[in-house]
């Protein structure tokens, strides 16, 4: 088979090299922590993109899976031992549990029309939030608890590389997943569910598959998140996490996988920068306001997200897209123009 090297491959390789080399060039703790945070939320946002961007499911309960991962890892590291083995085991158990929960919840709710589904996911994630609040003996209620991360991760750099490697592996796996025959059916479900059914595909199965995959990946992100903070509390289960994932996906570009990563970078960096400016300008303590403005601007000027809009621009420049209508076109489909 001929190996075609495109501009995209080069760009990916460059990015990869930058992130590998960066810690050796600039070993600022703040930067490492920020990048680690971006990668973790990038993984979460990609998992959300599988639901929103590829299958067209709007879920308000995605934080539930993030929380399951975070709590599983935190509780196991606290109650058992802070070894690497327990950490890996906790990730696997968290993913298994999240997969099981998303399978059950999906089976129960994905039959419903989208807005009813969205409300129900909210209810289910509320259920887990209450569980995390009330099961004090294990979760220490609202305040949460601190725990010791495995010793290898005491070095921020090691953890950074662990998270970065995970991100790359998950990205490649999800990329393959959305380009598999099953992934194509997910896209068909998003485009026209009824038609997909009449082609003989049981769309419920595919929506459940999407939600299980998204749930498992989100749980993994949650595990990493807990370890990055060495602390967990109920905030990992709240709507804020879901909204963050939603914003990252929309700002970056739905249905692109790369978009959510970029969205995560933009939002995490903006949060970091804006709250940093609060020291000099008290108004920035309300950085959430600026966030709102940023979001509105993004939706007005980049309705397809940053990646989506850029892509369109490039295609226009190459003269491949004439009709404004095609803005909604799938990136994968468009590649065929090339």
């Amino acid at each position, binding site marked *: 088979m001929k190996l075609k090297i495109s501009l995209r491959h080069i760009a990916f390789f460059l990015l990869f090299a930058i992130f590998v080399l960066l810690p050796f060039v600039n070993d600022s703790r703040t930067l490492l922590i920020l990048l680690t945070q971006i990668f973790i939320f990038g993984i979460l946002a990609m998992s959300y993109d599988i639901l929103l961007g590829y299958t067209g499911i709007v879920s308000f309960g995605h934080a539930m899976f993030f929380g399951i991962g975070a709590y599983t890892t935190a509780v196991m590291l606290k109650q058992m031992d802070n070894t690497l083995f327990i950490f890996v085991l906790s990730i696997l158990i968290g993913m298994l549990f999240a997969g099981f929960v998303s399978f059950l919840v999906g089976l129960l709710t994905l039959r419903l029309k989208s807005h009813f589904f969205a409300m129900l996911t909210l209810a289910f994630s509320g259920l887990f939030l209450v569980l995390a609040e009330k099961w004090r003996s294990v979760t220490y209620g609202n305040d949460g608890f601190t725990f010791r991360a495995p010793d290898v991760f005491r070095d921020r750099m090691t953890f950074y590389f662990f998270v970065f490697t995970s991100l790359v592996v998950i990205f490649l796996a999800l990329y393959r997943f959305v380009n*598999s*025959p099953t*992934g194509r059916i997910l*896209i068909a479900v998003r485009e026209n569910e009824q038609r997909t059914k*009449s*082609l*003989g*595909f049981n769309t419920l*199965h595919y929506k459940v598959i999407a939600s299980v995959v998204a749930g498992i990946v989100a749980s993994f992100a949650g595990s990493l998140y807990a370890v990055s903070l060495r602390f967990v509390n109920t905030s990992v289960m709240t709507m804020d996490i879901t909204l963050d994932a939603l914003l990252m996906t929309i700002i970056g570009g739905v249905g692109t996988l790369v978009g959510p990563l970029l969205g995560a970078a933009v939002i995490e960096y903006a949060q970091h920068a804006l709250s940093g400016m609060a020291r000099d300008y008290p108004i920035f303590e309300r950085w959430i306001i600026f966030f709102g403005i940023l979001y509105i601007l993004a939706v007005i000027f980049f309705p397809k997200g940053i990646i989506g809009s850029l892509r369109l621009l490039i295609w226009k420049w190459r003269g491949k897209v004439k009709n404004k209508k095609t803005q*909604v076109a799938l990136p994968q489909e468009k590649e065929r123009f090339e």
Partner: protein
Amino acid sequence: MEPILHTDNLTIRFGGHTAVDRVNFQMPEKHLKAIIGPNGAGKTTFFNLISGELKPTAGDVYFKGQSLAQKSAIERTRMGLGRSFQITNVFPNLTVLENVRLAVQSKEKIRYQLFRHFKSYKAITEKAEELLALVLLDNKRDALTTMLSHGEKRKLEIAMLLALDTEILLLDEPTAGMSLEEVPTILEVIRTIKQQGDKTILLIEHKMDMILDLSDSIMVLFNGQLLADGSPEEIMNNDTVQHAYLGGLYDEHLTDIK
């Protein structure tokens, strides 16, 4: 000969309105039957009952002698009942090729394959291209479906239906809303399928010349009831049918036949 499809007192009521009323019909294998009737006669409802989109109030549909009462629309498609829709119903934001490719993929039962790249299934893409050539859409394979003309979308519908490779094709007004220039190509496509000789086709149509040209038999629905079922000549000479439906049209077309 055992009919491939038949109905037994098929009835559906919506409140007080009986849309399909005790219809008994038989469909011989590899046969092309047209369903005609005025608007609101229950033609599309009848299709929906056969394809499983609607559940009958009474009566049943039989495919190769087997009752379909417990079968969902998806199961019926898999068993061999494919249908096209009166309203164009495709994937607007996917390419023309991808639309057909998905249908071929369904036929090939590649449903839960998560790790291989979809492009590695070369046979599927080739089959899809072949079907596009059959409906004369091969030059549009990479266009987004939303940019196609109405007639082209109808052709795409037929390609997708053929991709499922079902024994029975239910075509709901394949030429609806088409411009006059586009009709002959659809006619040609249906004729090609018929000549290949392995499909049973049930066709709802309004264009009488097309029906007379293509069909082996015609059934007439009126107010949900089966008014007549027979060869084109029989139907054209049937007094009840003339009164109920054909009216003035009749004379004109009879001369055509002669």
